[in-house]
Structures are given as C-alpha cells and as structure tokens.
C-alpha cells in the first residue's frame, strides 16, 4: 500500500550512496509515477534488467544497493508514531547474477 503521506518516493542508490547512471534517469518510483492496482497497491521490480511488465526500478547490477523510502507530509498519526509505518514488502524473485 502507498505510505500514509501526502507524497512518497522510493529511490535506488548504489552502495557508495550516490545515484547511478540509470536508463532514462529512472532513479525513483514515487507518488506521481506509481500505478496502483485494483486493491490500491503498487508493485515494482528492481534489478539490473527489466524482467516483467511491472514498473522497473533499475539498479547498478555490479555492487550493492540501497533503497530509500521518503515520506513528505506524513499523516498526523504516522508523524506522531513513526514506528507504526508499514513499509513496502520486498521479495526476492531470483538469484543475484
């Protein structure tokens, strides 16, 4: 589910904590670019190559990866108790190359 905030983003960083040269400058998935399904949820795949029709967040493929979730103007309840955040779930789809 999208985080309870006015706006959010998930950005992929290389292990040096900087952005990397992603195709089409696709550095993040966010409240503007995420497509919600019938359940109001979003899905994306992340990795060095596109593997399916879901939104693809490219990664360097030659090193570590850091995904950063940012919330802008979170809902008051979440702001009062940040630990109640339900972050997106992550599932491995295959072995690392």
């Amino acid at each position, binding site marked *: 589910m999208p985080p309870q905030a006015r706006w959010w983003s998930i950005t992929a960083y290389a292990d040096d904590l*900087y*952005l990397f040269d992603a195709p089409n*400058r696709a550095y993040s998935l966010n409240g*503007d*670019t995420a497509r919600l399904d019938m359940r109001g949820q979003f899905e994306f795949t992340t990795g060095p190559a596109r593997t399916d029709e879901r939104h693809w967040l490219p990664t360097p493929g030659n090193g570590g990866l850091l995904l950063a979730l940012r919330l802008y*103007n979170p809902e008051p309840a979440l702001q009062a108790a940040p630990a109640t955040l339900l972050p997106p779930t992550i599932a491995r789809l295959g072995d690392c190359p």
Partner: protein
Amino acid sequence: MKHWTDRRRLWFYRGLVLLSTAVLVHLAAVWAAPRLIMQMLLRATQASGVQAHNQAAFPAPVTAASRSIVLPSPDLLYSICMFDVRHGPVRVTANPQLPGYWSIALYASNSDNFYVLNDRQAHGKPVDLWLVSRDSSAKKQTVPPGSEVVITPSATGLLLMRVLTGDYDAQKTLVESARHTLHCEAV
C-alpha cells in the same frame, strides 16, 4: 601529589588523557563538524561555478553525476542563495504557485536550520522575507510592508528552496517557472 604512589599517578594521568580526549571529540563532533560541513558545502557550490552570494541560483536537477551530497533526492529541484547580512539586510521573495510540496529553509553557518516555510504554511501567499543579523534591529524600521523579519543567528548562511517533482520531464515547465520565482538580494 608527592605522596602519591606511581600507580595512583599513572591512573591520574590516564584519567586526564581520557577527559581531554572526550572534550576534544565533543568539540570536534558537536561544534566543529557542522561548521566544517557547511563550509565544504558553500565551497563546493562556489567551485561548481554557481553564483549564489546574495542572489538566487538554480542548480541543474540532481543526476548520477551529482556528488556533493550523499543520498541526493532526485525528486526535488533545488534553488539556493548564500545569504550574507554583514553589510545589511537581505530580502528574499518567492511565489511558487504549485499544487505540490515546496519549502524554503534557512540554515546558519553551523548548519542549524533556523527557519522553514512550506506550501501549506504559506497558504498560497507570496513569500517575502527580510533577513537581518541580531545586531541590526535599527534596520527593521525600513522593512517593507508585508515583509516578514527573520533574524539570522549567523551573519552568513544558506537558503535552500525545495520544489517537489516526481516526474521532471512531464512537469518541467511548471516546476522550473515556480523555482525561478525565488529572488534574493542585499538591500
């Protein structure tokens, strides 16, 4: 201390070294580091050719080539102004009419954030700030009507305007014109 045994003297000096180290580490981490970081940031800005001394500057959107700050946000467009109120007030105006988030934040030379205003707090009204140092209260008399006086804790510092854009290519015209409403000038 002449009655001290060698063992007690040794522990005394060990304690002294520990205390001195703790004081030095505290000063380095709490006092020097924030100032050093701000200095490095300002020098990096100048080195990149951006003219931002008491004037607004509009760096290019963050890309993989952006290496001045770790974890840069690709979803924000930045406008900056390195304010300097040593020789008088600095007036800041902006009117970013946007449906999304934007903010203007002011940082002192020790990197403390001492002022912030976002789009919700602005309620669609133009921003008009009059930056003055603590010792120039007499200058308040010249403040233009409607301008908000902001007293800066340090004579120099950084103004950072953030404009949110989740899809820069699609929103370029809107967000670029919004951030270019920032003006910053010595009075």
